[in-house]
């Protein structure tokens, strides 16, 4: 028994420090399927309350769609529950390869390799394809999983200011002597909901002989006219060298991710990426669900069109109510409150009004940039959004922030 009193107390002290700093995270138990309306137990032990969900990554409303559930059942019946093996021993079924081919077709890439999650894809890809002679140049707001992946890679790492193409070009010039240069960005940035300038980035990468990596986790399925992603939206389909994305958000919402792109890079991942080599891949039931999702999305743009209309309605409503929003046109709509305590109070008051939306503050977003991040779904109907707008207006009025500028809100509450 090596877990001594001293060790226990040391951990208790660390946890107390996290709590004192207001950074302690607590899960809220949901008693229903994921949908526009969910039943939430909050605080723990309270009777579940039915609320409108404004903070899921369920962009296309497919997490509990009957067609996806049916396909998952069929996959469970025909291919079983698990494989008890990594891919290269005896853990690859025909449907895994089928999904890789379908993803390549959907994203317009040469080849694809599945990973247990997009976190794993991002953690494994850079180490697999880069050496100490290479450089990674990333946007300063890329997702945490990309930062972890870059830390594991032997290549040197540099950054450029968020979406600043002049700064990116300076960095490409600075590192022009490197063997391989990779420019790294999110397609849609998860906290701000803005979109990378992929057309300009492709042009710079071509000029300076660099590869382009894009994480499309908050884009795949709904950004661009047919939902292929930010590369479709920016008119650069087929020009992105490496795309990573997730099946845990719009594409069914269960789990799993992939690296998709140039076939040699995908093959390097198959040979060297450690999360692929040393972990089981996606379970057959999930693979079957995602195959059904891609099939649905390839036939019709109905769901992404509804999402686009819902997003426009939501943004217009919040703007007219007098909230400060981050610019953008994606379903991620941050309502800026700037002060961390205000963001927490606002979220709690919304819950009392039957609206579930979470406050984000430092260190998840920069100091003084606290917000309620709302996320729109095709599962929402206009009556959901109207009810949510009524609640936002009521809570906004209570806190006296409607029609106030950033500066006025900061003067009232502090940043």
């Amino acid at each position, binding site marked *: 028994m090596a877990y001594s009193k001293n060790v226990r107390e040391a951990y208790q002290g660390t946890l107390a420090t996290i709590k004192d700093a207001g950074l302690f995270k607590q899960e809220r138990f949901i008693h229903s399927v994921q949908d526009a309306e969910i039943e939430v137990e909050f605080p723990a032990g309270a009777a579940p309350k039915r609320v409108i969900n404004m903070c899921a990554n369920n962009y296309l409303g497919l997490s509990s769609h009957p067609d996806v559930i049916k396909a998952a059942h069929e996959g469970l019946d025909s291919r079983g529950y698990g494989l008890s093996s990594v891919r290269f021993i005896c853990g690859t079924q025909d449907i895994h390869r089928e999904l890789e081919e379908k993803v390549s077709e959907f994203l317009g890439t040469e080849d694809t390799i599945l990973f247990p999650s997009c976190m794993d894809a991002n953690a494994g890809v850079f180490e697999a394809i880069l050496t100490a002679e290479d450089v990674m140049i990333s946007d300063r707001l890329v997702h945490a999983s990309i930062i972890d992946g870059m830390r594991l890679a032997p290549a*040197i790492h*540099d950054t450029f*200011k968020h979406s600043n193409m002049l700064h990116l070009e300076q*960095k490409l010039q*600075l590192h022009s002597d490197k063997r391989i240069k990779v420019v790294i960005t999110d397609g849609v940035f998860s906290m701000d909901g803005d979109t990378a300038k992929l057309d300009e980035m492709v042009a710079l990468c071509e000029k300076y002989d660099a590869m382009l990596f894009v994480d499309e986790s908050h884009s795949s399925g709904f950004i661009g006219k047919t939902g292929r992603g930010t590369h479709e939206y920016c008119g650069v389909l087929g020009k992105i060298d490496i795309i990573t994305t997730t099946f845990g958000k719009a594409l069914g919402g269960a789990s799993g991710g992939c690296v998709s792109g140039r076939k040699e890079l995908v093959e390097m991942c198959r040979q060297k990426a450690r999360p692929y080599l040393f972990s089981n891949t996606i379970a057959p039931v999930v693979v079957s669900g995602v195959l059904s999702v891609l099939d649905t999305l390839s036939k019709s743009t109905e769901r992404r069109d509804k999402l686009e209309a819902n997003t426009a309605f939501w943004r217009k409503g919040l703007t007219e109510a007098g909230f400060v929003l981050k610019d953008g046109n994606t379903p991620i709509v941050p309502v800026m409150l700037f002060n961390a305590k205000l963001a927490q109070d606002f979220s709690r008051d919304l819950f009392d009004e039957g609206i579930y939306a979470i406050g984000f503050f430092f260190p998840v977003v920069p100091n003084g940039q606290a917000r309620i991040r709302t996320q729109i779904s095709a599962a929402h109907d206009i009556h959901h959004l109207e009810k949510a707008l009524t609640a936002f207006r009521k809570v906004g009025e209570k806190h006296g922030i409607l029609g106030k500028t950033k500066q006025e809100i900061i003067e009232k509450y502090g940043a």
Partner: protein
Amino acid sequence: MENLKEVILQYVINEYLEDDSVEVTFETPLLTKGIVDSFSMVSLKRFLESKYEIQIPDDRATPEAFDSVSKIAELVDEFID
């Protein structure tokens, strides 16, 4: 040496500051105050090596040696000489 410090200070301001309200002096702790992260030190090191035609060995480019404009200037000055 003063000129060297000015060059480095100007680079730090242009490269890392997004917010004009943050003031940086020769002695401001860059890493411990979170103005420069350890990843971004790479560009600073490469900029100095290129501008002054020097090579700073990796074992000398430590977070401590890069924690203020004055300390960086001392390190660079050593290699220029």
